[in-house]
């Protein structure tokens, strides 16, 4: 027990002011990670993942739907529905989640408290993007797992049923049976399907970064969502749209330049649509996959820089 004598509180001189804190890193992946994981928590607590339950129900239902079609056709249909839903989920979620989260932080002044900490604005944007993409990635992987399980179970069922009935009929040679079974397998679970999921993810990443860019200057979530969906639709008709505008060659040089800028700024989402072929059993063209990856990175960098340009001097 050390009883140090203390002077009464009233007469104690103020403690000396506090000393300076330790230095802060210029850029910190840790801070990006903190914002990203808090975004994931936020989306999870908004019950986002309940969507997966609905998805599982749909895929299982479609999988057990007895349609009068060949096994190969039935597998193809399951895939069409499942991958189509996954794709829509990815881009729609990218738009809505991104458009809701950032303006909400601004409106609620939560952003003040974050940016008042030693956090860079680019770290905030990267964190939000990372969080949204992480949720999309987790969802896509989970959906892919669900749909792989359904496809695989249907495929093995079909294969064994076909095998038994062909053997039982006794009219087919081993080679013929093998040919028939490989036809079914070609519509079944193949590693290439993963590339189609990757394409959906890349597309969603571009959609998300475009939405971030829009939400750095848009004043409402609704506006951001509408414009982002519009850009998404235009981006799907990219070829058509740009040839339509570029054909107006009677325009002045300025207008033509503007059209070119707009053309670059509206991402060409058509590039990602080759994944539909993969789902239908076409071979994967490696060059296309690389092109897709490269373009996605390009769009991410360009739009992040553009967003930062607006966001860095933004006053709240």
């Amino acid at each position, binding site marked *: 027990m050390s009883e140090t004598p203390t002077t009464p509180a009233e007469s104690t001189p*103020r*403690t*000396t*002011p*506090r*000393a*300076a*804190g330790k*230095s*802060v*890193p*210029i850029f*910190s992946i*840790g*801070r990006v990670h*903190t*914002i990203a994981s*808090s975004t994931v*928590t*936020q989306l999870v*607590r*908004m019950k986002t993942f309940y969507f997966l339950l609905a998805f599982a129900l749909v895929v299982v239902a479609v999988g057990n739907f007895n349609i009068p079609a060949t096994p190969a056709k039935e597998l193809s249909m399951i895939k069409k529905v499942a991958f189509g839903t996954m794709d829509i989920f990815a881009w729609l979620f990218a738009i809505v989640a991104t458009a809701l989260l950032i303006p909400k932080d601004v409106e*609620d*002044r*939560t952003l*003040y*408290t*974050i*940016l*008042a*900490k*030693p*956090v*860079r604005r680019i770290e905030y944007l990267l964190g939000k993007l990372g969080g949204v993409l992480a949720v999309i990635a987790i969802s896509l992987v989970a959906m892919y797992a669900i749909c792989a399980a359904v496809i695989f179970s249907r495929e093995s069922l079909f294969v064994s049923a076909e095998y038994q009935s062909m053997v039982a009929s006794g009219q087919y040679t081993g080679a013929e049976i093998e040919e028939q079974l490989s036809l079914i397998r070609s519509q079944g679970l193949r590693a290439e399907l993963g590339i189609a999921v990757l394409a959906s993810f890349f597309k969603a990443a571009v959609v998300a970064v475009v939405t971030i860019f829009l939400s750095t200057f848009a004043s409402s979530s609704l506006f951001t969502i509408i414009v982002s969906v519009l850009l998404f639709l235009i981006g799907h008709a990219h070829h058509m749209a740009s040839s339509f505008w570029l054909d107006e060659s009677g325009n002045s040089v300025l207008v033509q330049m503007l059209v070119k800028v707009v053309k670059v700024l509206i991402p060409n989402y058509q590039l990602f649509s080759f994944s539909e072929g993969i789902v239908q059993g076409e071979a994967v063209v490696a060059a296309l996959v690389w092109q897709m990856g490269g373009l996605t990175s390009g769009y991410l960098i360009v739009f992040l820089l553009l967003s930062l340009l607006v966001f860095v*001097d933004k*006053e*709240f």
Partner: protein
Amino acid sequence: MSEPAVEVKNLTKVFSLGLRKEYVVAVDNLSFEVKAGEVYGLIGPNGSGKSTTMKVVLGLMAASKGSAKVFGLDSGDIRARNEIGFLPENPYFYKHLSGAETLRFYGKLCGLKGAALKDRIGELLKLVDLEGAANRRLAGYSKGMLQRIGLAQSLIQNPRLVILDEPTAGVDPVGSRQIRDLIMRLRDEGYTVFLCSHLLEQVQEVCDRVGIIFKGRMRREGTLDELIEIENQTSMTIENATPELIAGIHELIRSSKGARLIEEGHSRTSLEHLFIQIAERNREGES
């Protein structure tokens, strides 16, 4: 001595409204200093530019003219922000997080982790008396609790300076009392506190110095005593005065030449009087 915690020099902030050439001068050539270790209060009515000044000091907004420095660093410098804890006006934190999770989030943003972070969270929850509500989500917090978790959040990285925007606004008297006690504790622990408020009586007792701001301009500044003191007036606070004594004093005042009794009563409200006077004088000057 040491450099000032906050140094605002000739700060002007102009907002332009819409596309037309309308603009608002929110802060007008404002200069003041907050010394390290003191509690400085910027007081003024709503719309007088207090929040704007704080945002410029924090680097959330750029000055139109002039400058703001924090411990000698330009505001907006990431190192400056590491020295500042900020509680905005009517703060909203993520409602889906609990009190402890909120502190963890802000702590991580400041680079704290592991046991150090955990200890700090425990310490702060205790300081703001929210240990019992640590695991409840903020969606269920009262206004006073939100302000207190906000105060804890602002202190997470052990900053040297705490900036509080209207810390007691909208909080009931008990909650407001708690917050003021906390501010005094912070002062005793060596924090520099820069707060603003339109609630004068509340700020009065915690501030070492106050600046009165009106329409973006500093109207009066000084220690509380200086501000309250009026050169040709004297006030007395008498304990256990009998009615006879008071009657005698009244008699003395009446009989002495030139002297006049202006008011009697509690001296606590005089800052408020001064403030209303200033506001009225400026309104008259304009119309």
